[in-house]
Structures are given as structure tokens and as C-alpha cells.
């Protein structure tokens, strides 16, 4: 085997062209890793919103809470279904909520975007145990006070502690608290008293969804059988985690697909760059390669040596791209969730699998980019060692 030090030092000697190739490959890996990290962030954010021991009930045929409406009296029937957990006082653990989308002015950029407003009952904290007020206080029931998710804070006009915004025209609401909720998509929502939301948006007597806490995840089938078995109710029951998984699918596939397409297009350019670097490097080293052949190194040994050189070049770019993409971990990114048509703030979520995939992608770029130059190197005759 030709020592790898020979290849690594040769790359270092041709530092300008090497650096250009490393940057090119690094950019591609950055784009790919960024897209995959964003996709993972979307899945993670929406995934955190759902739990397997919570069932969500929607109007039959509704894909999302936004499109669903359930009359108030139905709440009692749902809560009395088998499998619903009861608290110490014997009350079933369940909650009916109303979800509305409102258009709000963004800060820092011209334009508006949709924000979800969730009307919640007074006992919301009893059901949603992960809810934490991180700034300010909880909203007073029956008032126009609201609390906002921490990811919304400062992104829209009026959405910060102590500020006000129009819930509806001439219907101001005041932000009295900022909440965290286990990093879920609820942190991109405004929560207000359900009666306030019903009045403001003319949805008297309606819920969008009902959530119930199951005694255990295995109770879902029994619960579902009763809820969906009563055709007169016209309801669908889903596990909450599965519901959010479906919610994230469209956006996640879109982001992954877009990222992969861009990365593949960029990778062609990066591979051509690596190929040019390797061709130039081999052309200027034909005497060295001829000498190696004269000394007895076989064509496969030459091939492996130059493929390893291309691989080292590409992996350097890969590591650079990964390092850059890890900086995205601190960036929050708001985009439209295609399921709810409202803005949700995601973060880039680096996982070992994504970083490894990005590195493998870089390695493949190196191998494909280096293949033809390495083949050319094997064709250099040992007689090249003797020529001036």
C-alpha cells in the first residue's frame, strides 16, 4: 500500500485547489445536513406534541383540529367512554379545546402570517401537566388575557409580555404570560380562555377537539370502539402521537425532499470540482506515479491510493459542512405547517444518524468524483518515470 501520508501531504501542498474543493463539498454537506436537521426538528417538535396515552377526538372525516367541530354536549359522552382515566376525585381526565387561526403582523419583515389561537378551559393545567409559565402569570379565566408559547415571543406585533394585540377587530387581548410546553408545537400557539375565543370568533357551543387521558395506552382500542361505534356521534378517535405524526408528514417530506434535491444538484458541481482537483493533481504527478509503478506498485494499489486521496478531500469537506450545520442548532426557523396552515417555529435537530448520513454522502461524492481521475492514474505507464 502506498502510504496515506503521501496523499494527505500532497493535498496539503496543493492547498488552494484543495481548499476550493473542500469548501464546495462542505457547502453541499451543509445544505443536506441542514435540510435533514430541519426535517428532524419538525418531526421532533410535532412529535413532542403527542403522547400515546392521550386520545384525540375529532369530527369524522377531519384531518386536523382546524377542520373539526364538536358540539359541547358531546364532551360528556366522550368523557364517559371506557378507558378514560379518572383523577383522585373520580372526575374523568379530558379537555375540550377550540382552535382558531388568526392573521398577525410579523416583526422584522413585511407581511403577515397565520398564528394558531387555542381556546382552553380553566382546568387546562390539570390536564396538560407539562405546561409551565416561564414568564409572567397564567391568564385569568373569563377575561381577554392570553398566554403565548415561548417560540412566538417577539416574532409578531403585540406578542410579548405586557403587550396587546387584536384578537379580532376592536377586541384587544393582553399577553400576561409566556409558557413552555415540553418543546412541542404548542409553544407556537396563543392560549386564551375558550369562552373568549368562542365569542370573538362566533363559535359558541363548539370545540375543535376533545382530548382524553387514557388509563393506559392499551385502553385506546376500547375507547375508539365506543367513540367510532356510535355512528350518531360522527366522531373519529386517534392516538395523539399518531395524529401529530400525520400532521408532520407533509411538511417534513417537503423539507427533506427540497433539501435532498438541492443537495444532489449542488453535489454534481462539487463532484466536478473534486474531479478537476484530482485530475490536475494527477497530471502534475505523472512522474511520481510512474516512479511508483516502476518501483513495483500495482495498478490497483495506485487506484486505491488516489481514491483514498479523493475520499480524504471529500471527508474534509464533509466535516466542514457538518461543523457549519451544527451552528444551525442555535437557529430557530419559522415556517408554515401544511397541516394547519399556520406558522410553527422549529429548530434544527442534529442527530448522530443525520451527521453520519451527511458524512457518508460526502464520502460518496469523493469516491465518484475521484473514480475517473484514479482510473487515469492507473493508466500512467511506469515509463513516465524515465521521461524528462
Amino acid at each position, binding site marked *: *500500500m*502506498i*502510504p496515506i*501520508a*503521501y496523499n494527505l*501531504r*500532497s493535498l*496539503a*501542498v496543493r492547498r488552494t485547489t484543495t481548499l476550493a474543493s473542500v469548501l464546495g463539498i462542505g457547502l453541499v454537506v451543509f445544505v443536506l445536513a441542514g435540510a435533514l436537521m430541519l426535517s428532524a426538528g419538525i418531526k421532533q417538535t410535532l412529535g413532542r406534541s403527542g403522547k400515546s396515552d392521550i386520545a384525540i377526538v375529532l369530527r369524522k372525516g377531519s384531518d386536523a383540529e382546524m377542520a373539526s367541530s364538536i358540539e359541547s354536549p358531546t364532551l360528556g359522552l366522550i368523557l364517559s367512554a371506557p378507558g378514560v382515566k379518572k383523577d383522585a376525585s373520580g372526575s374523568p381526565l379530558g379537555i375540550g379545546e377550540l382552535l382558531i387561526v388568526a392573521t398577525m403582523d410579523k416583526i422584522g419583515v413585511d407581511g403577515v402570517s397565520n398564528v394558531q389561537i387555542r381556546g382552553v378551559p380553566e382546568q387546562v393545567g390539570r390536564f396538560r401537566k407539562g405546561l409551565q409559565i416561564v414568564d409572567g402569570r397564567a391568564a385569568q379565566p373569563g377575561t381577554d388575557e392570553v398566554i403565548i408559547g415561548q417560540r412566538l415571543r417577539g416574532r409578531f406585533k403585540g406578542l410579548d409580555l405586557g403587550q396587546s394585540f387584536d384578537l379580532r377587530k376592536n377586541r384587544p387581548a393582553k399577553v400576561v404570560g409566556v409558557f413552555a410546553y415540553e418543546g412541542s408545537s404548542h409553544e407556537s400557539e396563543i392560549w386564551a380562555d375558550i369562552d373568549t375565543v368562542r365569542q370573538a370568533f362566533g363559535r359558541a357551543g363548539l370545540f375543535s377537539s376533545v382530548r382524553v387521558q387514557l388509563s393506559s395506552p392499551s385502553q385506546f382500542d376500547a375507547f375508539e370502539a365506543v367513540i367510532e361505534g356510535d355512528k350518531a356521534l360522527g366522531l373519529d378517535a386517534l392516538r395523539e402521537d399518531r395524529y401529530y405524526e400525520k400532521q408532520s408528514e407533509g411538511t417534513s417530506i417537503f423539507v427533506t425532499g427540497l433539501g435532498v434535491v438541492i443537495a444532489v444538484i449542488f453535489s454534481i458541481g462539487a463532484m466536478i470540482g473534486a474531479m478537476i482537483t484530482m485530475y490536475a493533481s494527477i497530471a502534475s504527478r505523472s*512522474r*511520481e506515479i510512474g*516512479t*511508483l*509503478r*516502476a*518501483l*513495483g*506498485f*500495482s*495498478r490497483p494499489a495506485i487506484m486505491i491510493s488516489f481514491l483514498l486521496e479523493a475520499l480524504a478531500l471529500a471527508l474534509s469537506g464533509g466535516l466542514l459542512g457538518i461543523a457549519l450545520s451544527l451552528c444551525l442548532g442555535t437557529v430557530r426557523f419559522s415556517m408554515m405547517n401544511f397541516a394547519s396552515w399556520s406558522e410553527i417555529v422549529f429548530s434544527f435537530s442534529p442527530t448522530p444518524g443525520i451527521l453520519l448520513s451527511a458524512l457518508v454522502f460526502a464520502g460518496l461524492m469523493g469516491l465518484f468524483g475521484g473514480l475517473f481521475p484514479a482510473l487515469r492514474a492507473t493508466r500512467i*505507464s*511506469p*515509463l513516465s*518515470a*524515465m521521461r*524528462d
Partner: protein
Amino acid sequence: MNSSPQASPSGSDRGAASDIAEHARPTTAESIISLRGVRKTYFRGKEPIHVLQDLDLEVPVGGYEALMGPSGSGKSTLLNLIAGLDRPSAGSLLVAGADLGAMSDSQLARWRANTIGFIFQAYNLMPVLTAVENVELPLLLTKLSASERKRRAQTALRIVGLEDRMHHYPRQLSGGQEQRVAIARAIVNDPQVLVADEPTGDLDRQSADEILTLLERMNRELHKTIIMVTHDPAAAERAHITRRLNKGQLI
């Protein structure tokens, strides 16, 4: 100084040796190089160019021969054939018992690694490797351990008087020193034959004399058979025999 790297055949070398042995033919007891009616023809388009014509040559074991002749006389082509870098168009070419005309590219590569030490006019050192790493290169084709390879490379560098330059890169050495490193690389595998292509062509007179003295020592003390192409009469004088080529024929 009479120490030698003495690279004994490793397992892979023995495998290569048995492979090469399939092509071994008896040579005369005294000859290590034997050419019979060797021709080399190149084609420029469809036009044949006869570079070597019906060449006969016997070089004894331990011989030191210089090849001289004008440009285009075929001396480099002859050297390439003897070194197993090229194959004859016709005739018989036996070197160290191997019929080179019948060997494949990969067989020739293994044979060269075991049998031939190369000394080039332009030294042909790897610029990014240190002196000791350059000398170690041929040993990477053996199954020797890393420490043994290092030890032998250091011994070879001591033989050529460069023990204090082992970790210098070629750019940090003079031309004469670079050629010494190349000679150390040529002998580190203990080959039977050294081929030298204008070994003093790029050197000043004093460095050239030092290199020629070193080659004499390789021949006299390590019993290497040396074939040297040169334009330098002073270099040719050091050889036992000077052969002259003209228009592809020995004269």
C-alpha cells in the same frame, strides 16, 4: 562500510518469486542479463520505427556496464527493457532468470519490486515524503513489519552517508544528496540489478564523482549488477565495460 539492508524474501516475495519462476529460463551461469535477437519497434501511426534491432547482449553477474550513444540510439529503450518497464517486440530477454517478454504487467511489477533498483536522472523522489519515507517505499511491497522497514531504510541511508538527513524532505537536500537518497531507495530491497538512467546528468562535477564512487561501492561491496545509461565519459570510465549503441544496434 559493508553493511547491507539484506532484505530477505518475505512470504509475498516468495509468492511473487514462484509466480515469476513459471517464466524462468536457464541462463548461462555467468550471465544475469541475456538478450538474444531483441527488437523493439514503435509505430507512429502506421509507420514502424525500429528502435532496437536484433540486439544480443550478455551481462555477467556483478557486472558494471555503461551504455552510451547519441540521442535516439535506443539506449534508454534498452534500459527500459532490461528493467522490465517495457517488453521487446521480438527476441528473448532474460533478466535474473526471468523471461520478461512472457510476463504480464502485474507479474512484471512484482518482478521489478524484487529484482530491480532504479536510479533516475531526476532522482524521482516523492517530494512530500521525507528521505527515510522515500527509502522505505519499496519495502511497503513486502510483508515486513513497520519497525523492520524503518530499520532497513535507516541502514540504507547510513550506507549512502545520509544518516543525519533522514527526516529531511527532498527540497531540503542538495541534488547530490537527493541522488544518494535515490540510491538508498534502489538498494533497500536488496535487488540483484541496479539500472541507472543518467545518474549524474543533473549534478555538478563534484557531486557526480561522489555518486559514481557510491555506485562503484554498490557494485564492489554489495555485488550489485549495474547497467548505467550515460552521456558522461567520466561516468562511463568508472564502468567495467562501456557499450555503444547507434541506430538501435550495439557497435
